[in-house]
């Protein structure tokens, strides 16, 4: 069967599965819509959290980033897993005991302030839209790469699917579709990973193959990689190029940001008990760790393969996958010295992404119109190729390629749905019900949530079709802002009885404004100054959330120490959320 037919079949089958689950689990009440009636088993919740958390970027791009940056890529591995330790110990059990529906609701109640709640809602909406725009784009990209459908058409198909199951099913529908999506994506990730591990090292377990020797030699994979890289002038794979303080700050910002992301936190509101909330965090990390410990192994194998099969090989003799992905526009070769041989090394062959002309050169390579740089390297490789091209590199059958397409879509759709739900509940529950229409009936609120979800899908889709130029640069925003706002406010809300409204609002405001200004300054106002020489303490905009978080803590404590302690009933509330007993179902109010 043709590979493209297989892709239609596999993707179509997974979409049918998601829709089937959505119909079967549709939500009938606000409690079901917001938190799946708090009836989700910890293992299911762990899988759903994993799918919710692992986005198109984790699935498609992360291994590629690690492959091309070596040790520097570790910030994502540690940063995007270490946050679950904080979630499990500092947030999840207490927020579950609190027993309401949304993160702004906790902030508003704990700090007895409608202002705090509204500030929190604005943060939630900003963070979630930033994030969801990339997901919708990701859906479009997967469609266009594998099925040669226009990116915009791909986004619209994705919108239709997400619209269907998030509007209909709410949290309950999303949870069970995410469980299915997790299974699809992890299977799709592991099959080629296992094959490529066998191909390079002979060991079927990628995590073990990573430390083994290259087949037929007695050199370890990493030594081989360092050696191959050194010949071409690259820094050793196992050494970094970033400064220690920057690696530290980025890792911290990603960890704390993970623990402060509303669509992740809200998953822990769905478990039946406090005990299950803790367990859920453990299962979530287990399911995430399967992918996150495989990714660096895949990165190393794919890089070994790339460095052995491409540099100093004539274009005519390059492997078939090289030409396939050149046709797809992810690889470009500009024969600068006219010798017909592919030179690869440090730097970039030309500025920016390749602009292909419709002509072929004398070796039948696709010509690009970009002006060459002074660097000797002639090869442009899009990082996403590491995951996308794996099945072909390992000579796997067409159905594995189809699986990768379905996995990439599952990763993007599941994250998009989780984010859209958070946006819609913030609007219907935290803005509409708590501010403008306090007497709204449950039916009315549910309808409002569904309308908000529908509108959010359309806005997210528009972001996907007309991506704002800044989308690629704003990932730092989502994590930095979550780290500088929600994490400190929630942690102090649980662990300090003295933290009051004034302290929390001042802390959030200072943390947010500081982090926001720093990122805007270096990313948009003066991008030419965006280098270590001008950064404060050598911390890049990606890591600045760490400083924002520290500022938030310091300002909150200082302000709280000179203002009035929180009222008696709030102190009782804190005592109550600290012990598990009495965590019933969701409190409707």
């Amino acid at each position, binding site marked *: 069967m043709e590979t493209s037919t297989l892709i239609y079949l596999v993707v179509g089958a997974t979409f049918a599965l998601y829709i089937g689950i959505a119909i079967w689990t549709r939500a009938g009440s606000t409690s079901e819509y917001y938190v799946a009636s708090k009836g989700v088993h910890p293992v299911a919740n762990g899988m759903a959290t994993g799918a919710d958390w692992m986005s198109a970027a984790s699935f498609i791009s992360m291994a590629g980033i*690690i492959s091309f940056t070596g*040790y520097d*890529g*570790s910030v994502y*591995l*540690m940063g995007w*897993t*270490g946050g*679950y*330790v904080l979630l*499990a*110990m*500092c947030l999840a*059990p207490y927020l579950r005991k609190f027993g309401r529906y949304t993160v702004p609701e906790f902030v508003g109640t704990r700090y007895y302030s409608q202002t705090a709640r509204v500030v929190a809602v604005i943060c939630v909406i900003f963070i979630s839209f930033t994030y969801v725009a990339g997901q919708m784009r990701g859906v479009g990209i997967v469609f266009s790469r594998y099925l040669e459908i226009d990116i915009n058409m791909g986004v619209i198909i994705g919108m239709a699917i997400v619209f269907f199951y998030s509007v209909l099913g709410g949290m309950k529908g999303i949870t069970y579709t995410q469980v299915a999506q997790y299974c699809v994506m992890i299977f799709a990730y592991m099959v080629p990973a296992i094959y490529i591990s066998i191909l390079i090292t002979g060991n079927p377990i990628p*995590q073990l193959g*990573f*430390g*083994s*020797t290259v087949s037929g030699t007695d050199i*370890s*994979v*990493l030594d081989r990689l360092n050696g191959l890289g050194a010949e071409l002038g690259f820094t050793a794979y*196992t*050494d*970094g190029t970033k400064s*220690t303080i920057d*690696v*530290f700050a980025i*890792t*911290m910002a990603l*960890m704390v940001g993970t623990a402060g992301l509303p669509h992740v936190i809200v998953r822990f509101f769905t478990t039946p*008990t*406090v*005990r299950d909330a*803790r*367990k859920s*965090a*453990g299962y979530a*990390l*287990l399911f995430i*760790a399967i992918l*996150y*410990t495989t990714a*660096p192994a895949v990165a190393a194998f794919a890089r070994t393969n790339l460095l052995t099969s491409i540099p100093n090989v004539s274009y005519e003799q390059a492997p078939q996958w090289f030409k396939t992905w050149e046709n797809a526009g992810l690889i470009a070769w500009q024969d600068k010295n006219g010798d017909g041989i592919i030179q690869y090394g440090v730097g970039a062959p030309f500025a920016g992404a390749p602009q292909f002309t419709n002509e072929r050169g004398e070796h039948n390579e696709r010509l690009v119109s970009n002006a060459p740089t002074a660097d000797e390297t002639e090869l442009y490789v899009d990082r996403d190729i590491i995951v996308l091209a794996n099945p072909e590199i390992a000579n796997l059958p067409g159905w594995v390629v189809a699986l990768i397409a379905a996995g990439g879509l599952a990763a993007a759709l599941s994250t998009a749905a989780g984010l859209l739900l958070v946006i819609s509940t913030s609007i219907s529950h935290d803005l509409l019900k708590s501010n403008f229409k306090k007497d709204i009936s449950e039916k009315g609120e549910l309808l409002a949530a569904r309308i908000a979800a529908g509108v959010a899908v359309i806005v997210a889709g528009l972001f996907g079709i007309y991506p704002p130029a800044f989308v690629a640069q704003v990932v730092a925003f989502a994590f930095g802002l979550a780290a500088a706002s929600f994490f400190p406010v929630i942690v102090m809300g649980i662990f300090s009885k003295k933290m009051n409204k004034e302290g929390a609002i001042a802390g959030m405001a200072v943390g947010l404004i500081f982090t926001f200004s720093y990122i805007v300054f270096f990313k948009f106002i003066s991008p030419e100054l965006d280098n270590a020489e001008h950064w404060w303490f050598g911390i890049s905009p990606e890591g600045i959330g760490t400083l924002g978080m520290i500022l938030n803590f310091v300002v909150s404590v200082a302000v709280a120490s000179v203002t009035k302690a929180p009222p008696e009933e709030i102190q009782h509330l804190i*005592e109550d959320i*600290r*012990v*598990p*007993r*009495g*965590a019933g179902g969701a409190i409707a109010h």
Partner: protein
Amino acid sequence: MSLSKEDAARAYWKENLRLMLILLAVWFLVSFCAGILFVDLLNQIQFFGFPLGFWFAQQGSIYGFLLLILVYVLRMNTLDRKYDVHED
């Protein structure tokens, strides 16, 4: 147990904090210390085909995080019962 409800809750919270701080110290150790601050030093040591610091940064820290949550879940379940604050 002869403790009053409030005393029990207070003692429970104290023991919970202690456990949390110990586990968070390990969290900091396996990621920030072993994988970042002392990575060059640890890279001098070979560990199953990996430079040790690099292994912590790309594999070991994640396994460490998993173990930490496991220990936390088990210890907290015991504490919940010890101070009689568990859910039915």
